[in-house]
């Protein structure tokens, strides 16, 4: 049993603090090879993770790196550094604490490798980079503990897979390394434990007291929410009132663009000039730092933010969390709510603000789920192979390796425990030769097998290129934005959005309306001379789909005879839908057909989430095109897909036939843009496509060609190539999300209700107003292009 050294104990006592039971437990179990703490936000779990390390380092006898702390956010690493240094300095402990992220300076990074601190705070990507250096074995030789904070968040993405692969490498270098995971409340702690622990070692799970139930409600406004849209502008006065009533409010949005727009409108309505800030991942680092510092100092009354502030950063005075837009996912909502009132055993206070009428239903369903402690989660699949390919390349950067050693090392990662030797060899072959059926690169392989049987990079200069492309976060290409004549960047916008701007256009960034002046090198220059209403910068953000569990709750709610829990405007709307058509049911697919604006519309209520509904739309329109129904476009939301075209759909059953849909995925959808984007993501992670090149991206797009061409070429000449197999696997989730279509088919078993109406139904009406309509690239489209061209040629001819 590890005990708290007197210097720390007295520092605690001086503040009248005592350890929580789970913090004492963590100290007691300090020697466990793997330890997972599940604690609600605000439960002091980060300090619980560090106490054993502080105790072990208090004697000052350890030289070099002792504990590595990994968090999903740079901001979190910086925050922990602040919070940890205070007790360490005040208790006079001989412990050096530093952070290392993408934002750390070059000289600082070099020095850290030569002379690492006792405690290094970092992110999965920075850690992967550290393991790629030749001196990694020296740096990590004395490593005693890795603390993975907010591991539940990492577990949801490939960043978690990358992290645990890096841990397998560290464990090989430092066999005594213990693993500590800190997680918010999750649906399946065992899954997180499997991710964390060295396979097949057991992982001890400790549960902290979950604390009192949150005080959570839907914000009631005088004005009902609009029919469509995601801005929730209508709620500005009510939100402002709440800000005034509380000390500090955190206002969460699902996308960056919505956060920008909301902040802008909030600022316009801010008649008392309350100090309000904005924080999201596209803003420049210095601006984010400033907002974070002001928040910690208690200088701000509210922050408008996105998921970048989702995780356990400690804001002292926070007493209200407002979630704008339906939360899409109950687990994430609970974690966000936990941000409020960072005192143990005090209930968190939160308000949900639906952005439109349907989201009222979603918010109420989410509230019910929170009260029932019904968290959602999808089972973790086995480790993705694109991440494995990147891991092999990273391993090659750090020096020659033996393939058998590496295979066994990877098998100690829970997610890759079932990886077959053949699958590993495929990935190794891909990294070495490209893995093509046509062996074209005999002379120019990336990895070579040396006479001693070990693998190494053919060209050592390749290491730099590989290091520059480490990471699994799929960001779109962005351009820096700065005020003309001013060096300081304001933030970043997507390249695709920048391409749509012409001089004089205005857009929002950092809550400021700016005027586009031009492109200088790879920087967007803007001025403050904004006159027109702003275009909204289309940040990609993450388009969260409503979870399976939340969708199921909404369907259950639809089955009620009446809806006393809903505001009258929304209950009336559902009743109208029931009177004029019918409400969707759990075990059936509702299909509505109606004419509108000289087009035939058909709405398919699949409740499969936005991405799957979009995929469904693409598959349906493809079949409609083949059947001569001339579809023109579609729009997908989390609950339905609306398709329109020149001809009416009279029998939807064959369109929804499972065999047809699966066939469409295999054949037609394989050529679609969403599959190409999926391919692009995996091919970038696996190292086939380089995001960053050593020479700055000066030449940009024009010198490169689209990854779509690679996908098409590979599909045509090497359809069984590893990258295409990975792409098909990825299509079951993510952007394509065919897994949710399968879930819908299983749930409904071919039960379809087709309702033909003479006009648009109440439930379908908001969809007409939805953004993000997808045009169908069919014959009708080619004709439209020709017509548009003819119209343009008219005056010229």
């Amino acid at each position, binding site marked *: 049993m590890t005990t708290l050294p007197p210097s720390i104990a007295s520092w605690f006592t001086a503040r009248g603090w005592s350890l929580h039971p789970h913090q004492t437990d963590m100290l007691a179990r300090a020697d466990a090879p793997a330890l997972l703490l599940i604690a609600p936000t605000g439960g002091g779990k980060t300090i619980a993770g560090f106490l054993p390390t502080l105790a072990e380092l208090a004697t000052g006898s350890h030289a070099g790196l002792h504990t590595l702390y990994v968090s999903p956010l740079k901001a979190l690493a910086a925050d922990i550094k602040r919070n940890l240094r205070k007790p360490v300095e005040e208790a006079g402990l001989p412990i050096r604490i530093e952070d290392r992220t993408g934002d750390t300076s070059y000289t600082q990074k070099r020095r850290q490798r030569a002379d690492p601190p006792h405690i290094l705070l970092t992110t999965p990507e920075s850690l992967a980079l550290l393991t790629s250096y030749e001196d990694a074995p020296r740096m990590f030789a004395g490593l005693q503990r890795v603390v993975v904070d907010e591991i539940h968040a990492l577990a949801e993405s490939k960043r978690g897979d990358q992290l645990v692969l890096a841990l397998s490498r560290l464990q090989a270098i430092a066999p005594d390394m213990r693993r500590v995971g800190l997680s918010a409340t999750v649906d399946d702690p065992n899954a997180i434990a499997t991710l964390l622990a060295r396979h097949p070692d057991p992982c001890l799970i400790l549960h902290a007291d979950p604390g009192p139930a949150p005080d959570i409600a839907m914000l009631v406004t005088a004005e009902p929410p609009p029919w469509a849209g995601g801005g929730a502008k209508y709620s500005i006065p009510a939100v402002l009132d709440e800000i005034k009533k509380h000390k500090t409010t955190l206002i969460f949005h699902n996308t960056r663009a919505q956060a920008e727009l909301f902040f802008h409108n909030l600022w316009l309505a801010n008649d008392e000039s309350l100090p309000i800030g904005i924080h999201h991942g596209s803003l420049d680092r210095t601006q984010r730092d400033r907002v974070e510092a002001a928040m910690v100092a208690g200088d701000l009354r509210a922050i408008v933010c996105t998921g970048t502030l989702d995780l356990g950063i400690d804001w002292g005075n926070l007493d209200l969390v407002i979630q704008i837009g339906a939360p899409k996912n109950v687990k994430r909502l609970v974690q966000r709510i936990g941000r409020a009132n960072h005192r143990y055993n005090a209930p968190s206070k939160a308000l949900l603000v639906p952005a439109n009428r349907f989201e009222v239903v979603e918010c109420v369903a989410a509230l019910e789920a929170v009260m029932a402690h019904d968290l959602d989660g999808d089972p973790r699949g086995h480790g993705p192979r694109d991440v494995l390919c990147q891991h092999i390349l990273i391993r090659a950067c750090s020096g020659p390796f033996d393939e058998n050693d590496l295979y066994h090392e990877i098998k100690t990662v829970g997610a890759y425990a079932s990886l077959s030797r053949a699958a590993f060899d495929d990935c190794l072959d891909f990294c070495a*030769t*490209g893995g*093509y059926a*046509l062996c*074209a*690169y005999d*002379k*120019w*392989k*990336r990895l070579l097998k040396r006479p001693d049987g070990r693998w190494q990079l053919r*060209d050592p*200069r*390749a290491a730099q*290129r590989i290091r520059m492309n480490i990471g699994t976060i799929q960001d779109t290409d962005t351009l820096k934005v700065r005020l003309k004549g001013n060096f300081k960047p304001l933030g970043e916008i997507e390249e695709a959005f920048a391409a749509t701007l*012409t*001089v004089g256009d205005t857009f929002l960034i950092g809550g400021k309306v700016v005027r586009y002046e*031009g*492109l*200088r*090198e790879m920087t967007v220059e803007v001025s403050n001379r904004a006159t027109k209403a702003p275009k909204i910068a289309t940040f990609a953000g993450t388009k969260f789909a409503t979870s399976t569990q939340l969708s199921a709750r909404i369907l259950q709610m639809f089955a009620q005879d009446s809806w006393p829990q809903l505001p009258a405007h929304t209950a009336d709307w559902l009743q109208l839908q029931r009177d004029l058509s019918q409400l969707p049911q759990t075990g059936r697919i509702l299909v509505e057909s109606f004419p509108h604006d000289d087009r035939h519309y058909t709405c398919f209520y699949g409740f499969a989430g936005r991405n799957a509904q979009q995929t469904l739309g693409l598959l349906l329109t493809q079949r409609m095109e083949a059947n001569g129904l001339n579809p023109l476009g579609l729009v997908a939301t989390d609950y339905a897909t609306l398709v329109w075209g020149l001809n009416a759909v009279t029998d939807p059953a064959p369109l929804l036939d499972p065999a047809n849909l699966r066939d469409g995925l295999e054949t037609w959808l394989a050529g679609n843009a969403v599959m190409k984007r999926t391919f692009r993501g995996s091919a970038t992670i696996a*190292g*086939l*496509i*380089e995001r960053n090149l050593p020479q700055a991206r*000066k*030449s940009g*797009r*024009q*010198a*490169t*060609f*689209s990854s779509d*061409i*690679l996908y098409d*070429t*590979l599909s*045509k*000449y*090497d359809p069984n*190539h590893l990258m295409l197999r990975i792409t098909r696997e990825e299509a079951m989730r993510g952007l394509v999300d065919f897994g949710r279509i399968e879930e819908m088919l299983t749930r409904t078993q071919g039960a379809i209700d087709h309702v033909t109406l003479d006009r648009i139904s109440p439930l379908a009406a908001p969809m007409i107003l939805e953004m993000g309509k997808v*045009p169908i*690239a069919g014959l009708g*489209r*080619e004709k*439209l*292009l*020709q017509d*548009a*061209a003819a119209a*343009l*040629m008219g005056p*010229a001819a």
Partner: protein
Amino acid sequence: MTAGHSFTLGQTAVVATTARALWLPATQTLCVSDLHLGKAGRIARRGGTMLPPYETLDTLHRLATVIGDLAPKMVICLGDSFDDLDAADELLPDALTTITQLQSGRFWYWIEGNHDAGPIRIGGTHVQSLTHAGLHFRHIATEASSEVSGHYHPKHGINGTGPARPCFVYDANRLIMPAFGTYTGGVKATSPEISGLFGPKAIAVLTGPSAVAVPLKRSPPPRGSRGKFY
């Protein structure tokens, strides 16, 4: 009958085909530009990634289809036919055989480009430029009139009708060809380096399922943006 957009350049009737090739009906001449054969190999050789090594075959297959359809008496490859001179040397036997078969029974000109300046060991006539049927063929555009050139890989799109497509750009004096190679990107035809070569009445011919002609509107040049090219 050739699928494409017919017009007259100088005194010569030409067809900009959907397949990114130029057809001169009177002399039965076919012109393609910027094949960039061997590009994947060149990237790997220089320590880059190993892209799917099928682009050379794909480019040649598409060229074979066009040649099969039109049975030209003469073929002009308008420069950057090879991604570099080593790429020409490293072509796989299959590709060399295909080129030899395509060349048989017709005149074949390789015009030098910036990527493949210098002698190559593959059959056909190597020239810096060529004057044929009243038109001047060279890789990079000059001030001359009645000129056909490549190099810029122009692409163009119409707002709201999908992504930009490789395109021909022409006015009364000159024509710039789209790149024919499979692994070739594009530069917006409205960018100053391309649109600056044309008068106000320039036309872009989009390629793809159909050949679509639209006026090329010149956008004001953004300051300080000058491109670099492969």
